[in-house]
């Protein structure tokens, strides 16, 4: 596919002088690899913080009755858990991967806008500092769910809502800048000969994701701003008494919110489309159809938002439209899954840790996708809506989907980043413990939901007790399993382990495997030529 100029073999001392020593290196850095590392560590820390909140939730739900926290604090936990995981863990992790990999995959020396890159990362910790510190205020932090439906988030919320709004604004600004950077980089800095239809799938999926981000993050900013003015400045966007409409909030929120869920899964599709061919030693089946399927999913994601709102009392025609549009999305998504299976078919597979995570992704994400198809059927959605069935569904697509893909990506590229093979034994422990516990955690939720347990309740009727006990145990085990990952990452960052060659995995294809391991501080200062 490619030939790489010898320039990549710099002497080490040539680029060492780019490092400012100590903390300033990280504060001032404009290097895509440094910023990628910052994003990834930040995401991992937020993953642990959000996970700790999930542990509080599961501890309270371990038994019926109120034991550990008060209902109001429970609501803060569900709210901030959601916000931290979506905006603090999954999205920054993908941005970190894009920072590290997109320039290396397209043969560019860095991101197109390096100073903005630094800025878009460094405002994030402050956004989350604001959000998390609001939990310690009198009256507590946001307690209206991560979806912050009005008027619960306006008239009926406490003053910390202002901090919530401000922190979401900062997160949005960070995401938009990150997206602009990805688009500008991909459009302008591809190596000679790399046409659009030769771009690696991860680059393609991120390219499309970045457009989604630019389209919908401003909508979210609009929604939180309207919440702010409704609460503090006497406007009535969402207040019927002043001529507004609380359901309009949900339309605006989900117009952001549905593309947002694809923002969190399209890059995952890209990652899996790299890992499966690498370990099946066979090219990706249907590259072109993968690109078109991704683009169709992205376009359709703009016309399905109201499937989150079937119970709000929409006209029946609107319900039919959103039901059918939602069902349509399963067609291109199905194409992707079929293509991955066809890629494996008659390959020569091996099952290294990245592949294990990728295979688990395909099965478990598909389970989440199929329950999504069930949720699309409006009359039945009336029964599923706002129950644990929905909780099961979106955790299958987000945890065993997005987060498993991020872990697969971390294991796939970690040796390239550090130059050392990670601790394979620990990695396998991490995989198997996560796989078993995550299913114990989320699979029974389907049954609990079908039996009628609403979501976001701190206490429940007695018939749900046995299942919730097991769910909580699965949750604790999944939480603990991530500490194995933490240990492995610390070990990897301390450069323990065997050195690896440039092409770490036998079947891996792409420019990132042409540069030495660890990838030098600067790569592709002279662009490679793609034949």
């Amino acid at each position, binding site marked *: 596919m490619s030939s790489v100029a010898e320039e990549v073999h710099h002497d080490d001392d040539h680029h060492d002088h780019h490092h400012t020593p100590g903390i300033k290196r990280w504060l001032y850095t404009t290097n895509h690899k440094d910023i990628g590392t910052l994003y990834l560590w930040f995401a991992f820390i937020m993953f642990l913080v959000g996970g700790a909140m999930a542990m509080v939730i599961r501890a309270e739900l371990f*038994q*019926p*009755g*109120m034991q550990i926290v008060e209902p*109001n604090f429970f*609501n803060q936990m569900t709210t901030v858990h959601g916000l931290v995981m979506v905006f603090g863990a999954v999205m920054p992790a993908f941005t970190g991967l894009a920072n590290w990999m997109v320039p290396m995959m397209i043969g560019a020396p860095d991101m197109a806008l390096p100073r903005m890159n630094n800025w878009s990362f460094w405002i994030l910790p402050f956004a989350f500092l604001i959000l998390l510190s609001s939990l310690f*205020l*009198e*009256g*507590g932090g946001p307690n*209206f*769910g991560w979806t912050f*439906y009005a008027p*619960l988030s306006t*008239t*009926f919320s*406490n003053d910390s809502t202002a901090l919530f709004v401000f922190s979401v604004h900062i997160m949005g600004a960070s995401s938009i800048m990150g997206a602009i950077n990805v688009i500008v980089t991909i459009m302008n800095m591809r190596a000679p000969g790399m046409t659009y239809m030769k771009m690696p799938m991860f680059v393609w999926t991120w390219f499309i994701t970045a457009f989604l981000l630019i389209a919908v993050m401003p909508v979210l900013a609009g929604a939180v701003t309207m919440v702010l003015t409704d609460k503090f400045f006497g406007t009535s966007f969402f207040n*019927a008494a002043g001529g507004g*409409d*609380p359901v309009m909030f949900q339309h605006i929120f989900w117009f952001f919110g549905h593309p947002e869920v694809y923002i969190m899964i399209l890059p995952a599709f890209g990652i899996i489309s790299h890992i499966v061919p690498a370990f*099946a030693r*066979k090219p990706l*089946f*249907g*590259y*072109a159809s993968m690109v078109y399927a991704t683009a169709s999913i992205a376009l359709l994601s703009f016309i399905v938002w109201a499937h989150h709102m079937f*119970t709000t*009392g929409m006209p029946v025609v609107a*319900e039919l439209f959103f039901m059918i549009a939602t069902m349509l999305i*399963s*067609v291109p998504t199905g194409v992707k*899954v079929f293509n991955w*299976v*066809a890629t*494996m*078919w008659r*390959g*020569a*597979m*091996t099952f290294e840790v990245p592949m294990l995570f990728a*295979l688990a992704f*395909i*099965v478990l994400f598909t389970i989440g996708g*199929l329950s999504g*198809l*069930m949720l699309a*059927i409006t*009359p039945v959605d*009336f*029964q599923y809506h*706002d129950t644990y069935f929905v909780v099961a569904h979106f955790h299958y697509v987000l945890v065993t989907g997005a987060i498993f893909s991020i872990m697969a990506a971390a294991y796939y590229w970690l040796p390239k980043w550090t130059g050392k093979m990670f601790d394979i034994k620990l990695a396998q422990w991490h995989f198997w413990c996560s796989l078993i516990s995550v299913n114990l955690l989320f699979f029974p939720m389907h049954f609990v939901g079908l*039996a009628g347990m*609403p979501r*976001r309740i701190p*206490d*429940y*009727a*007695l*018939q*749900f007790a046995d299942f919730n006990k097991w769910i909580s145990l699965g949750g604790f085990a999944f939480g603990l399993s991530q500490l194995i990952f933490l240990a492995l990452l610390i070990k990897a960052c301390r450069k323990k382990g065997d050195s690896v060659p440039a092409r770490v995995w036998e079947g891996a294809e792409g420019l990132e495997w042409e540069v030495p391991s660890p990838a030098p501080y600067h790569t592709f200062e002279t662009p490679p030529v793609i034949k």
Partner: protein
Amino acid sequence: MSRGVYKWATLLFSLLSTSVFAEGKSMPLNLTKGASDISAQVYDLHMIIFIICAVIGVVVFGAMFVSMLLHRKSRGVTPANFHESTTVEIIWTIIPFIILIGVAIPAANTLIAMEDPSEAEVSIVVTGSQWKWHYKYMDNDVEYYSLLATQQEQIYNKFEKGENYLLEVDRPLVIPTGKKVRFLITSDDVIHSWWVPAFAVKKDANPGFINEAWTNVNEPGVYRGQCAELCGKDHGFMPIVVIAKDPADYQIWVDEQQAIQLAAKEEEQKLLAMNMEMDELMSVGEKVYTSSCAACHQGSGEGLPGIFPALKGSPIALGDVSKHIDVVVSGVSGTAMQAFGKQLSLKELAAVITYERNAWGNSTGDTVQAKDVNAIVKGQ
């Protein structure tokens, strides 16, 4: 060391094996057919789409596992190099498409039937507020609030939990069987959602707007549900209980309720001429406070700082009586403070205001009488 492990293992095992409830009520693992024709149709749709999903899952994962078994490098296979086939791509785009059309048609039919509340024989206005339901029968003079009946002591693990823990209310909704019953659903404050799984009815209660839903229940019985939309602190504590009676029993119940509510109104008029003693006001007031006020302002009167204001030592509870009455009767717009004027009787209002002015060291010594409250209500 090993003894410690053993101790923990025993503890864990005993935690897992003890069933927390006495009756051993088991949880269904699936949706149920419910109590109406529509809910049975919804159940059928659920099973159709579930079976389709299961079959797709078996085929896809089956192919994947076969491939993982056969096409592994350790078996010495050489990888093929095929990576494109327009025919295959078209096939697996078209087939799911056809399956989806097959599901969409029956789903659309059921949906259209569910969303047609016309020609209802009984209409009931269902109003959610933090954290209770209000039912008003359109065709009769019957209306009342329905509150969680489970004791706080059960919730906080001081008493043993009863069979219908968190799914029991003081005054259930009563509807007739075999008649189309229409629900007009709205809210006084935030968005709630009225959900009875056995009817396959879940409809949001939006403040300022009215949604419609309906059911036609086949069998008499008790049907339980819960609020399904996060509505604040006690979202988990506003259940729904519906009793379906056959039409004759239903009519008896309605007549009875009408008589009771009429008598209560007459009683209220008499009260206007009487004065109640402090002791009586305080004891009635404490009961009313516990059921209507304590969820926010707390039993201690201290509220939740930053969310719900304290009444203990508050300027309103210690200040001008008529201002205090006004706040309780009309609520405070732009806040979570509800208007209790329509929720409580004059006697209850008088008692609870007296209680708030004299409990927790708020020793104003004021007694408030029904006629004082009435003066404020009428003055508006």
